[in-house]
Structures are given as C-alpha cells and as structure tokens.
C-alpha cells in the first residue's frame, strides 16, 4: 500500500492534492472569489476614467472693470485654450479673493481698466492671472500655454495678423513631438500602469494571508505532520493565484482596448511573458510575507506597509524621474517600478525584447530572491 515516490522533495501527486484543495477553498469563499474578479474591473473603470494628469475646463473668475473688445478678445482666447471656464464674474478683487479662498475657482483673471488704453498706446499692457497652486499639477498646464496664447490674441485683435505671423516667424521655433501619446491622453499612461497596480494589489494580498490562514486555523500543524515538502506547500499556495492573475490580465487588457482604446503597439506574447514573471514575483513576495506574519491581520498590515510606497514611488502616480536620486534608487526595489516600464514600453512604444531585457532581468532577480527567502523562512517556521 505504501507507494513512496523517489523524491521526497517534490511529487506531482502531492502538489496536485494541495492545488485541488486550494481551488476548492477558493471556490467556497465566494466573497474573495468575487473580489478577485470584481476588484480589477472596478478599479480599472474607476481610476481609468477618474485620473487625469492634465486637467482642463477649470473654474475661473474674471475681474474686469471695462468691457472693451480687447478684454473680450482676451477672455475668449483664454477660454479656447480649454483650460479656463469662466463661471464667475467678480465685481472687485476682494470678491475674487473670497472665491479663490473658498476653492470655488482655481484661477482669477484680472484685466485692469486701463488695459485697452495701454494696448492702443503700445504701453506694456498687463494681465494678472492668479492660480491656486496648492496642487501644482492643476495650475501648470493652464499657465504654460498662457504666454503665447495671450500675445497672439492681442496682435490679432489689433488687426495685425501679418505682424502676428511675422512675430511667429522671427522667433526661435521649437518643434515638440509628443511621441507615443501625441494627444497627451492620461489614460494611455494610467491604464497600462493600472494593470500592474491591480495585479500587485490582489496577488500580494491574497497570497500574504494564504499561509497565515492555515496557521491561524490550526491546519498548518496537520499539514506539516503529513508528507508535504516546503516546496510543494509553497507551489500549492502560489500557483492557484497565478491562474487568478491570468484571468485578471485578460479582463484588464480587454477592458483597456474596449473602454479606453489604449493602443497596443508591441507584442502580446512578450507582454504576457513579462506579466508572468511579474506575477510570480508578486505571489512569492506575498508568500514571503505569509511566512513572516503570525496572523492574517499582521499579514495584511505588512502588505499595506508595502503597497503605499510601491504605488507612490514606482512612477504610477507621480513621474519617476521627478523624484530625487535616492528616491529613484529606493523605487527600484519594487517589482512594480520595473513592470510599469515594461508594460508602458511594450503597449505604447512597441518595445521589443532587447529594450526591456534589463527590466525583465530585474523582475527575475525578485522572483529568485523572494522564492529563496520564502523557502528559508518556511523551514524556520517549523520550529
């Protein structure tokens, strides 16, 4: 009756038993199961539509004492940039100040009463734009377009089309190509990033409680008393989530195409390969956390301790290159950082393998590292 395998370290039959058990438990846990599929879709729709790095149509207040045609031309020029939406016309500076303080408007545009006179005289006309820069990102786009728009509008309004053209010609011409995303659509950047964030969220969280749940329920002791090796237990816990991850990837990629029309320039097999390595690193990280935490609560706390810096420093929310050097170095220790570069490069730039080999290499190091640490830690938890 005793059919003992050649290898005591690994047997497919035992791994199969562990996998089957895990899938049955996953299926019984309806809420978790729903979460695994519902969460990615919900986050994708929510963040995909909500996050915008280049906000337009911002509320603005106009303080204008005269109603001459120069003033009107100025206002319409600002409105056509798309950044300003003049909801409020303030009688005086104090009223405008109150509007900004209360947060009702993001800009106060003040056109002085002698604006027209100065324009006519060619006497250095001035225009005051006050921006609420508490959030620098909000104001930056609106302010950057301002100079040229205002100058050209003024020249045109004075019937100096020729001069405007001349002005443009004589100046240094800077040619800017916004490559890979010419229209500067935030979603093209956000949605591929979300793929990484969603995977990280569910994969690390689910696996981090995998082992502690067994410990907490007392089933770990029994599992260890039976002939299952640490490697089998680890794979048995980690592989089911690889399948869940695969489903999430399909959901997110289809949604990216259908809902957000994110271009897919590169090779799908290459991206899928990168995702596989990334997800492996995540589940192993989660499993490592699982070997450290004593309770499921601790595991979740450790997971969240990891989430925030990884989301903020990976380049998902804020430009990676905008961070100081030490923070960039710190950011390198998150698999998400490398995955974001890969997914954006493959999806938007059509990058081939050589271009992302370095990043995939980094993810591979994470996989080896986490697997090693997890197996080492696991042996110790026996005692």
């Amino acid at each position, binding site marked *: *009756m*005793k*059919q*003992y*395998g050649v290898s*005591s370290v690994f*047997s497919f*039959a*035992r791994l*199969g*038993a*562990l996998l*089957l*058990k895990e899938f*049955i*438990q996953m299926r*019984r*846990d309806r809420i978790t199961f729903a979460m695994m599929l519902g969460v990615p879709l919900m986050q994708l729709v929510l963040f995909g539509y909500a996050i915008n790095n280049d906000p337009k149509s911002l509320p603005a207040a106009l303080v204008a004492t005269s109603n001459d045609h120069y003033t009107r031309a100025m206002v319409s020029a600002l409105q056509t940039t798309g950044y300003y939406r003049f909801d409020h016309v303030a009688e005086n500076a104090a009223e405008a100040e109150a509007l900004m303080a209360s947060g009702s408007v993001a800009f106060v545009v003040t056109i002085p009463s002698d604006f027209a006179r100065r324009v006519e005289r060619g006497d250095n006309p001035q225009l005051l734009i006050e921006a609420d820069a508490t959030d620098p990102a909000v104001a930056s786009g609106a302010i950057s377009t301002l100079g040229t728009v205002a100058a050209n509008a003024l020249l045109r309004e004075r019937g100096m089309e020729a001069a405007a053209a001349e002005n443009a010609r004589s100046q240094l011409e800077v040619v800017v190509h916004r490559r890979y995303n010419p229209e500067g659509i935030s979603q093209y950047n956000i949605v591929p990033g979300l793929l990484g964030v969603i995977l990280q969220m569910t994969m690390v969280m689910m696996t981090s409680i995998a082992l502690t749940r067994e410990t907490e*329920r*007392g*089933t*770990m*002791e*029994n599992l*260890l*008393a*039976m*002939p*299952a*090796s640490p490697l089998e237990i680890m794979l048995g816990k980690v592989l089911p989530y690889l399948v869940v991850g695969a489903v999430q990837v399909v959901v997110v990629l289809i949604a990216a195409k259908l809902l957000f029309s994110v271009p897919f320039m590169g090779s799908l097999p290459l991206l899928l390969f990168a995702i596989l390595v990334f997800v492996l690193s995540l589940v192993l990280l989660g499993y490592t956390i699982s070997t450290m935490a004593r309770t499921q609560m601790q595991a979740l706390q450790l997971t969240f301790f990891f989430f925030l810096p990884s989301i903020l420093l990976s380049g998902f929310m804020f430009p990676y290159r905008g961070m100081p050097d030490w923070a960039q170095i710190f950011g390198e220790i998150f698999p998400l950082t490398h995955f974001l570069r890969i997914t954006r490069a493959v999806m938007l730039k059509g990058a081939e393998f050589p271009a992302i080999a370095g990043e995939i290499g980094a993810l591979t190091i994470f996989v080896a590292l986490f697997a090693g640490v997890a197996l080492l830690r696991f042996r110790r938890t*026996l*005692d």
Partner: protein
Amino acid sequence: MNAIEVRNLVKRFGTKTVVDHVTMNVAEGEIVGFLGPNGSGKTTTIRIMCGLLTPDEGEGQVLGYDLLTESLKIKREVGYMTQKFSFYEDLTIAENLEFVARLYRLRPVEEYVGRTLDDLGLSSRRNQLAGTLSGGWKQRLALAACIMHEPRLLLLDEPTAGVDPKARREFWDEIHRLAQGGLTVLVSTHYMDEAERCHRISYISYGKLLATGTVDEVVKNAGLTTFVVEGPRLDQVAAALEGRPGVEQVAPFGTTLHVVGSDKKLLDAALEDIGKRKGITVRPGETSLEDVFIQFMAGSKDNMA
C-alpha cells in the same frame, strides 16, 4: 524493536526549557499514556517525535528512523492527531479525506476514502462540510484521517478533550482495537480513567519525565500512604489536618476524606487524635493514580519556586 526510543531530548523556546532531558521507550503494539499538567511539555515532546520540531539536544529513533535526519520518513509512517481539530472546515468530509489520501499517495483514492467513510458511518454525509460536524464527530473524522495511511505509530495529543463520555469510551475501544493490530499508540491525556486504560504511563512535569511504568508500578513507586477518614463534619477534620507535618494532601471524595502523605510514621502521628474524635473512623486506603499525580504536581512546583 521499540517503536519509540529517544534519549535526553531537550527543547528550549527562548530561555524556557520546555522539554528537559526526556528519555522514553515505547515498545511496538503498546499503548502509552502521556500525562502531565497543562504546559508541561507533552505537546512539544509529541511534536518532536513526529518530526514537527527539531530537538535542541538529544537523539533517538522513531520506528527505526533517526529523529534528526529522517523526519520525512517518520512523517510518512506516523499518524499525528493534533489537539485542536486541524482539518479543513471549509472542505467536505470526503474532500478532507481525499486530500489526505492524495498527500500520502494512497491509490486508488476513492477506495481508501470510501472504506474510511464506511468505517466511520459517514458515507451518507460525505458531502457535508467538516466545519458543521459536532465535536465528537470531528474527533472521529480526525482519527480516521490519521490512520487512513495505515501508520505504524499513532501520536494523539489530548484527543478526547471536550468529548462526551460515550464517545470517549468508543474512542478508546477503537484505540485498543488498533493496538491489537500491531499499532503503537502514544496518547496524551488529562483524564485518570484514560490513563488507566493504557498499558503504561509516563508522567511529565515542567519538561521533566518524573515517572514511567504501569499504573500499578507508578502508584507503588510513588511510595504514598493514604488514609480514608469517614464521619460527621469532615470539613472541620480537613481544616484541622491541613498543615500538620506529614499531611501532604487532604481531599474530599464524596462522603469521605482522603489523607495522603509520603511518610507513613508522620501521617500516623498526625491522624492519631483525629481517630479518637467521636464518630470518626480512620482506615488505611488505596492510593489512587490521581493522588500520585497531585503529589507530583505539588512536588515539581516546589522545584520551580
């Protein structure tokens, strides 16, 4: 060959020595009771024997396999039943058994599981979640799962805690049936009646093995003298005896009082005037296993202080 042969096992957790030079031999086919107060190191010793913990010191063989280097082989031929129900409550009865059968690579799985379910009388409830079973049934399921792979040694850690007397009785009948088939059993327990159903017992306290042998041997070797006091107002007698030299235990048993001491002369002297009280009779009694254990517990507490 002995099923268990361990020498000088030591296990420390931090600065606390939980198992302190325990030496133990269990012959094949024997049922050995493992007794001792809470936190005395019973569970830790059992965990060392089934390869769940590595001892800090000591050596030995379990089923002929080296304790330190062959724990995987030991795991395959030992059935270990944990103190707490440790099968999956969110799996059905059959799924739990199938899981165990697959882990031990018992083939065909369905045959093993089917036979076990029939033996348990749970075939009709095979699709019931294990978590919905009552305490007694959980215990029976756990035992069945532990012996499905036909182990040569069964380690049971307080298997009958919280189980009603009838289920306990049936459980012990089953243990004896298994032992007759050649299975060796080491079972930890708090219950004296269960200790008396073992071939031999070992008593452990604060990590030290204090006594080992058959129940009679342990009682005899303890060298205790017991007197039974009968009569009216025994509470007053008890109060009077408490603290007298030679009186080590005074415990009411129904309408009688058991007075126990290790020095017979001192005890005789202490009881002399009591016997002369009106209506009170003092007669020599039989020392029970419980008296011995309480004596052990009191003794080892002194060691700790």
